[in-house]
C-alpha cells in the first residue's frame, strides 16, 4: 500500500496556499460535466455537498435518515473552536494548532492540523453569515467560553445546541442547492458497497431503505462523510444508526484504515443503569467550565452527597492537574474517573460514577445564570435520572463517544483509492490519539466547506475517466455480492436477535478494550469477538423481508460489519507498543499513571490494509515527521 501524504513543502504557514495553487483547477464550464457522490449529511457531508454544488458540480447526496437534517452531528452540544482571539487572551492560529497537536498526544500531522487552525476563523465567519444564532454579549458581539485542553476561551457556541445549529446551517445551504437542482438528494439510502472501475472510485451501491431495492449510482468521485464507529462499543453517545458499514466496505475495496484503536471515551456522560439501555447520553464538556468533579475521600462512602462535608471530598482533577483543573483533556479526565472508581471511591448505585457539582457556581453566579448557560443540559439530565442537578450534584461516568481513527487520507483528503475522498469523523486526519472538545465541529466543517472544494479539482482535472454507466460489470458484480449478503442474513433464522449480539460485542469491547488495555486482555478479546461473530452467522434471527422497510435487516448488516471491524481495532491496539492519548496500554505508563509514549518507535500512523476474507490485514505505516513543534510529554499539571 502506497502512503504518500502529499504534504506540500515549505513553511507551515504557507503550505495550504501553496497546495491550492499547485493543484490543477477545473474551469466553471467543465465543472458541469462532473458528478460527485457525497455519502452522509452531517457537518462534513452537508457542508461538502452545499459547497461543491455552489461551485457548479453536479452532486448526488445520500443519507440513511429520512431527512439530511437529522445526521448525528446534530447532537453535538458544547461548541466550535476558532482562533479569533476575540477575548484578547493570547490566542492565535499557532496556539490553536499547538493545543490540538498536543491534545492529540503528538500523533497527528502537523500540516493538516495547522490548516485546520487556519480555516477555523473562516468557518465562524461563514456560519454567522448563514444566520446561525451564536451566543452574543450585550454589545451584540460574539461570546466565547472555555473547553478542555486549552487555557484560552476560543469556543463559540449556541446554548447547548451548537451542533444542531451548525448542522441546520449546513442543511439549509444544502437544501438551497437541492432547490436549484444542483444537488439531488437521496434520503433513506444506505451505502452497501463502493464500486471501482480501472482502480478509481466510480460509484456506489445503496439499499433503498423504504422499498428494499438495491440501487446503482455512478459518479466521477465519491466523498464519504459517514461519521465514526463508536457504536462498536454498543453503548455510546452516538445515535442508534451510526455505523462503520460504508467506511468498512470501502476498506474492503482497498482503502486503508488508519489508527482504529484511537477511540475517545468522553468523561462526562450519564452512567449506565440497566441492561435494557440502548445508548448513553453525553453531558457537554462545557459543564466543566463551572462544575467541579469530586468523589468522597473515603472508600465505600455511601452517604448522600450533601451529607459529605467539604473536607471529606476529593476534587481530584483540581488536586492532580492544578493548572487545568476540571478542564483537563478528555482522555486524562476519563482515566482519572476510572481510577477513582477502581479504588472504590465511585458513587451511585453501581459505584461507577463521580460527582459533577454546581453548588459553588450557583452560589457564585446564581441559578438563573447557570440555567442560561446549561439549562437544556440540566433539563435533559433530570428527565433521564429523575434528580434535580441544581440541588443534587450530577453523577457522571465516561462513555464511548468519538473515533479519532478512520479511513486514511492524504493532505487532500483522498484515501488510498483514487477518487475516494473521506471527510469529518470518518477520516483519521486531525485529532491524533485524542480529540479536544469543540474540535469535531471545527474539523467537519473545515473539511466540507473549505478543504474538499479546493482539493477535489486537483483530482478531477488531473485524471482520465472512462465512460461508466450503471450497467458496467463492476456494478453488476457488486450488486450480486450485496444481494447475497442480504439474503444470507435473512436465511439464518436462528434464536438470538441482532441487538443481543451487538450488546455482547459491546460488552467485550468495553471490558477488554476500553479505558485500560493490556496485551492479555486484548488477545482474549480477539478470541471472544471471533466466537460472537461465528455464532452470529449461525444463530442470528432477522425477521421480515428484504423488499420493504426492515429495520432488523439494516441493523443486522451493520452489526455484521462491526463484528469484523472490531478485530482490526483490537489488532491495532495490540500493535501500538505505547500509551498515547486515548490508547492506554497499562504496560506503558509513568509512575503517576500517565500515558507513556514511545516517540522513537511509535511516531507513526498505523494503516491497515484488507487482505481477503478471514485473513489478517496487512500493517502499513506512515511515519509522522515533526518539523515545527518539539515533541514534549503532555502535562496538564
Amino acid at each position, binding site marked *: 500500500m502506497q502512503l504518500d501524504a502529499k504534504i506540500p513543502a515549505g513553511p507551515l504557514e504557507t503550505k495550504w496556499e501553496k497546495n491550492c495553487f499547485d493543484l490543477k483547477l477545473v474551469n466553471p464550464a467543465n465543472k458541469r460535466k462532473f458528478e460527485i457522490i457525497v455519502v452522509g449529511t452531517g457537518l462534513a457531508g452537508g457542508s461538502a455537498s452545499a459547497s461543491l454544488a455552489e461551485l457548479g458540480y453536479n452532486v448526488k447526496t445520500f443519507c440513511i435518515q429520512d431527512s439530511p437534517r437529522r445526521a448525528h452531528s*446534530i447532537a453535538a452540544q458544547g461548541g466550535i473552536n476558532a482562533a*479569533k482571539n476575540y477575548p484578547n487572551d493570547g490566542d492565535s492560529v499557532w496556539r490553536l494548532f499547538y493545543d490540538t497537536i498536543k491534545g492529540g498526544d503528538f500523533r497527528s500531522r502537523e500540516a493538516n492540523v495547522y490548516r485546520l487552525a487556519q480555516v477555523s476563523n473562516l468557518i465562524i465567519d*461563514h456560519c454567522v453569515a*448563514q444566520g446561525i444564532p451564536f451566543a452574543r454579549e450585550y454589545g451584540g458581539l*460574539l461570546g466565547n467560553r472555555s473547553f478542555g485542553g486549552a487555557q484560552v476561551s476560543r469556543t463559540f457556541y449556541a446554548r447547548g445546541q451548537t451542533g444542531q445549529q451548525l448542522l441546520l446551517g449546513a442543511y*439549509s445551504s444544502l437544501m*438551497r442547492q437541492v432547490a436549484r437542482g444542483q444537488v439531488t438528494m437521496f434520503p433513506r439510502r444506505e451505502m452497501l458497497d463502493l464500486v471501482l472501475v480501472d482502480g478509481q472510485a466510480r460509484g456506489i451501491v445503496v439499499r433503498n431503505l423504504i422499498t428494499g431495492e438495491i440501487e446503482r449510482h455512478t459518479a466521477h468521485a465519491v466523498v464519504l462523510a459517514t461519521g465514526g464507529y463508536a457504536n462498536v462499543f454498543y453503548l455510546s453517545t452516538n445515535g*442508534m444508526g451510526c455505523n462503520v458499514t460504508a467506511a468498512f466496505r470501502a476498506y474492503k475495496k482497498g482503502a486503508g484504515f488508519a489508527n482504529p484503536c484511537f477511540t475517545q471515551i468522553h468523561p462526562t456522560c450519564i452512567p449506565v443503569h440497566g441492561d435494557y439501555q440502548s445508548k448513553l447520553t453525553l453531558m457537554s464538556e462545557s459543564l466543566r467550565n463551572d462544575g467541579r468533579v469530586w468523589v468522597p475521600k473515603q472508600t465505600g462512602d455511601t452517604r448522600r452527597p450533601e451529607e459529605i462535608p467539604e473536607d471529606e471530598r476529593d476534587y481530584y482533577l483540581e488536586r492532580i492537574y492544578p493548572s487545568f483543573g476540571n478542564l483537563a483533556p478528555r482522555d486524562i479526565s476519563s482515566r482519572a474517573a476510572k481510577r477513582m472508581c477502581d479504588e472504590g471511591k465511585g458513587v451511585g448505585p453501581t459505584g461507577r460514577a463521580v460527582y459533577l457539582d454546581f453548588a459553588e457556581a450557583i452560589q457564585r453566579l446564581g441559578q438563573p445564570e447557570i440555567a442560561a448557560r446549561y439549562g437544556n443540559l440540566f433539563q435533559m439530565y433530570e*428527565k433521564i435520572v*429523575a434528580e434535580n442537578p441544581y440541588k443534587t450534584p450530577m453523577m457522571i461516568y465516561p462513555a464511548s463517544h468519538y473515533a479519532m481513527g478512520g479511513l486514511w487520507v492524504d493532505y487532500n483528503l483522498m484515501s488510498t483509492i483514487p477518487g475516494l475522498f473521506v471527510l469529518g469523523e470518518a477520516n483519521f486526519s486531525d485529532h491524533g490519539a485524542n480529540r479536544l472538545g469543540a474540535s469535531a465541529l471545527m474539523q467537519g466543517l473545515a473539511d466540507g466547506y473549505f478543504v474538499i472544494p479546493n482539493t477535489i479539482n486537483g483530482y478531477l482535472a488531473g485524471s482520465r475517466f472512462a465512460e461508466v454507466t450503471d450497467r458496467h460489470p463492476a456494478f453488476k458484480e457488486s450488486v450480486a455480492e450485496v444481494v447475497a449478503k442480504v439474503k444470507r442474513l435473512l436465511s439464518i433464522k436462528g434464536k438470538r436477535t441482532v441487538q443481543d449480539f451487538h450488546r455482547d460485542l459491546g460488552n467485550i469491547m468495553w471490558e477488554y478494550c476500553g479505558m485500560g488495555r493490556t496485551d492479555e486482555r486484548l488477545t482474549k478479546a480477539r478470541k471472544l469477538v471471533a466466537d460472537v461473530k461465528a455464532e452470529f452467522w449461525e444463530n442470528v434471527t432477522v425477521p421480515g423481508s428484504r423488499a420493504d422497510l426492515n429495520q432488523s435487516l439494516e441493523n443486522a448488516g451493520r452489526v455484521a460489519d462491526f463484528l469484523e471491524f472490531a478485530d482490526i481495532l483490537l489488532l491495532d491496539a495490540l500493535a501500538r507498543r505505547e500509551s498515547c492519548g486515548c490508547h492506554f496500554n497499562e504496560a506503558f505508563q509513568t509512575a503517576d499513571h500517565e500515558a507513556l509514549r514511545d516517540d522513537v518507535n511509535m511516531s507513526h500512523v498505523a494503516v491497515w490494509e484488507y487482505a481477503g476474507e478471514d485473513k489478517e490485514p496487512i500493517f502499513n505505516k506512515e511515519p509522522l515527521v515533526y518539523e515545527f513543534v518539539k515533541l514534549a510529554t503532555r502535562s496538564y499539571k
Partner: protein
Amino acid sequence: MSSKSINLTLKVWRQPGSKAAGRLETYQADNIPTDASFLEMLDIVNQRLTLAGKEPIAFDHDCREGICGMCGTVVNGRPHGPERETTLCQLHMRHFKDGDTVVIEPYRARAFPVIKDLVMDRSALDQIIMAGGFISVNTGQAAEANSLPVPKDKADLAMDAAACIGCGACIAACPNASAMLFTSAKISQFALLPQGRPEAAKRALAMVACMDGLGFGNCTNHKECEMECPKGISISNIARLNREFIKAALVSQEK
C-alpha cells in the same frame, strides 16, 4: 433512580406498507423497567416479538437525546406522549402506571403519509425549507464575523426559534394539520437577524406558498402546536410570520 418495573397493555398501529390498510394490534408489555425510555420499552417489546417469530414494530428514531427530531409518534392521543417539552425518546416509563393501556399511533396528517407501522414520510418539511429556509450565502463570501453586531435580545429570540427539531409534532397536534409553527420558527429565526433581512420578503412569501401547496391546513389559533412542541417553540413566532407575510405581500417588490 429506582429499579421498579410495570406491566402495560399496548395498542399499536400496524400497517405493512403505505398502500395497505392498518389496524391497532394489542400486545402485552410486562416487566418494563421504569427507568427505561419509551423507545427502550419498544425495543424490549420488539425483542420479544422477534423471538416469537413475529415482525417487530417499525418506528423512527436515532439520537435518543431529544435533538434529531426523528422519533415521534402519538401516545394516548398526544404527539410525543404526556410530558411537556419532552420528545418521545426522552420520555421515561416512570411516567406510566402499572396496568396502564397505552395507544401508539403515527401522526395523522395528509402531508405525512404512513410508510410502515409508526414510520411516516415527513419530507414535506424539507420542501418547505427548500422554498426559502436559508440565507443565500455561498461558502467564501462571508465578512468578518464580528463586523455585524446582533443585539443580544434579538439573537436570543432567534435562538429560541431555531431550536425547532423538525419532528412535526406541531402538525400532528393541530386540528387543521397546519405547519405554521414549523414554518414560522424558521422565518422568525432569519427575520430577527440582520443577515436574514435582505431576503425576508421573498422568504415569507415562498415558504407560505409552499406550505399551502403541500396540503397543510391553516392556523386557526388553537395553540395545540405550542402545547405539544417538545422544544417549547412559541406561537408568537406565528404572529411574526403573519407580520412578515403581510408586509411582504402588501409593500414589498416581491409579491
